[in-house]
């Protein structure tokens, strides 16, 4: 079980790196869905490993919200606006991918320094969630389109969920629900924002001052 859990966790990180390596918005949303699926499967593995029934719930609501609902809204928004298919970014793609790699190295050093015995499957998960967190933040900083900021934000959220679910008991279900609804609300609001920005024909890319 733990080997598969490791695989799924690593794939979360890989999809974040892939996100840094592709300028396409649609692909980014698909990757987010894939990442959430991996997160859900990882949660399932933790549930099987630690025999925590509440994590099965967590698994199903992750599938419901993150794999289906949020990507659906994002695609819908994408269709309503005719944003460029590619995102502009402050630094080049290879640079941002290499930066993602260095962030991974950095978070591995941090994770090895901090002893995290409370996390299921060891400090590796901490490395991965920290690296995914940092890559998500990097996506938000370096990309110029509002959409990619959403994707970065969602990546960060996945990273936090990964860390949260790895603590042997998981988060209380009610907290998880609350966070997920917040997330949904955030995505809806941001989608509305994107549509409205488009309607009022302000510049589609955010100005960084």
């Amino acid at each position, binding site marked *: 079980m733990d080997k598969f859990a490791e695989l799924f966790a690593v794939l979360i990180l890989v999809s974040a790196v892939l996100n840094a390596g592709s300028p396409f918005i649609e692909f980014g949303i698909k990757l987010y869905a894939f990442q959430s699926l991996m997160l859900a499967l990882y949660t399932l593995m933790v549930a099987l490993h630690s025999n925590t029934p509440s994590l099965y719930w967590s698994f199903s609501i992750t599938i419901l919200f993150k794999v289906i609902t949020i990507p659906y809204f994002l695609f819908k928004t994408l269709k309503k606006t005719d944003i460029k298919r590619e995102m502009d970014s402050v630094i080049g793609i*290879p*640079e941002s991918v290499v930066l993602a790699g260095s962030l991974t*190295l950095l978070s*591995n*050093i941090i994770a*090895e*320094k901090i002893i995290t015995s409370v996390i299921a499957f060891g400090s590796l998960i901490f490395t991965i969630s920290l690296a995914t967190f940092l890559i998500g933040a990097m996506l938000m900083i370096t990309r110029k389109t509002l959409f990619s900021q959403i994707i970065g934000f969602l990546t960060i959220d996945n990273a936090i969920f990964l860390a949260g679910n790895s603590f042997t008991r998981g988060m209380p279900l009610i907290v998880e629900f609350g966070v997920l609804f917040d997330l949904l609300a955030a995505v809806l609001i941001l989608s509305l924002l994107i549509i409205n920005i488009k309607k009022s024909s302000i510049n589609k890319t955010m100005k960084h001052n």
Partner: protein
Amino acid sequence: MNGLLRYTFISLSISAGLFFLIFPLISPYKEFYVYTVPFALTFKIDRLSIFFVILIALVSIFISVFSLKYSEEYKEKPHIFFLGLLFILSMILVVLSYDMVTFLIFWELMSLTSFFLVISDGNSESKKAGRLYFLMTHIGTVFITSAFVLLYLKSSSLSFGNYKDIAGILILLLAVTGFSIKAGLLPFHAWLPHAHPVAPSHISALMSGVMVNVAIYGILRFLFIFGLKGYPYLGILLLILGALTAFFGIMNALVQKDIKKTLAFSTIENIGIIYMGIGLSYWASVEGYKIIAVTALLAAILHVLNHALSKSALFMGSGIILKNAHTKNMEELGGLSKKMSFFSVLFLIAAMSISAVPPLNGFLGEWYLYVSLIGAAQTHNLYIVYFSIISIALLSLTGVIAGAAFAKLYGITFLGKHRSDKAKNAAKTGLIENISLSFPVLLCIVIGIYPYPLISVLGGLISYLFRGLVSGGGILRAFGSNPFSALSPVQTYKNYSYSMYSPMLFITGILIFLGLAAMFFKIASNGKTRKYKTWDCGLEEDNKAAQFSGSGFSYGIMRVFSTFYSTASEIKFDTDVKKYFRKDTVYSEEISDIFEMKVYEPLKKYILKASNYLSSIFETENMNLSLSYVFLSLVLCVIIYLFLVG
């Protein structure tokens, strides 16, 4: 008269080289003194200096033999060869000297003679390079001198014999900085690509192939003999600086159009690789990973040797090109291999060796470095693991780009059509030049294919440097006596199995397959061949410029790594577009060293500003005041001395 002088000096250099090649072999490990008026000069041949003396003497002999014929270029200037003789002697004596005064005297002599050789062409470019070189090398000497002074204060002795294991971190840092300026490590490299190419080619070969090794000698002596073992971070610093230097050097070598400048930047790259080995080895010897220490040091020393051989051959080759075609700009050359076929083969082998194509010797050094880096990545020591991963990445990038740079150098210079009349009218090479070039090339091949005796000899040197803590020869012993099964087995880490590489088997395999392929295609194929012109898209124009250019060859890599270059390019063409090849298209491109632009130029400005400011304060016409400044600085020096003696 001039000719006689020239040949006298050259034959003197050859005989000096021969003397110092044979002398250490017949009387090894002896101390001897030369009494001069103020003090005695002390020399000693120990295991470290014997290696460097033989290396310097050997390469100097090749280069001196080469300059027998090459000296025709400098008929009017026999003093160049006198300076060359002094240069060679001073390098050898630096390595032999066994007390700090002797060392510094010959070090300074080496710097001065090489400075005069750099400016010997007399044009503005060489003067500018000479100024920069003079400045940098003396800053380096200041660092080295202060390291020695601190050593003297600690041991109150001038002799190297009393310096063992006393140098603390301050002394090591000072010495390493000083020697790194001479070697051309990353922040201090700016003088090297200016100074090495403008000197006469045989002197470039000496500077690039030999003089940097003297700096490496100094570092080895300080780190492993004088140094206290206890600063692992110094090793990591050298490793990562070396990796960055290697990467930076080869990135710049790739984009140069000047053959000698490419070679000078490639020297920086190789210095970086040597530093990686030294740094990793120092770290590992401090932390107690004996086998990694031995392997990494073996890699560094092998690379010193390989670089000296192949780089001197390449610089001699560039001298031949410069002499016969009167240009060192590769965009004006091309097609030289038809004129000088034997020479072009020698040049190709040297280029392959330096770009680490197996089974030549360049690969052997890099292989040992990879093996030790892989070993270091498994040590579970938190920092070295990541730094060695980064180093592996940078080293592999360096390896590929070195291949690209030398494929470009060879391909653009020797292959294709002649790009200009200079290349078309190039003279043929002489016999002496070919012979002198073939010695180092032959050594490259021999060391690459059959390195076992050399490695066991170097094992002795390594165990000397580690004071017998590890026996270099024992770990690197060859399996069995049969050269085909005699691999170079290294087990870098305790659970790790052996890494092996058998150069003999590699070359045998290649030769077998070459033979089989030749036989197969001889029998199976239609043997007919026909000569016809290269396909030119059916156009009638015969345009030499229509073939690929050197700057085009490096464009892709340059574009990906655009952050590492500071470029300014401009394209001009007429708007008449009826033809495929526009008549007047001028593309100009200026690539400058990014460090020079971003660090050195601002630094120069600040220093000038600061010194202007200081001189405006202290400049005075009052005699008493200026005397008081002198007095005060004297007092200050005394205070500093007291502080240091503590």
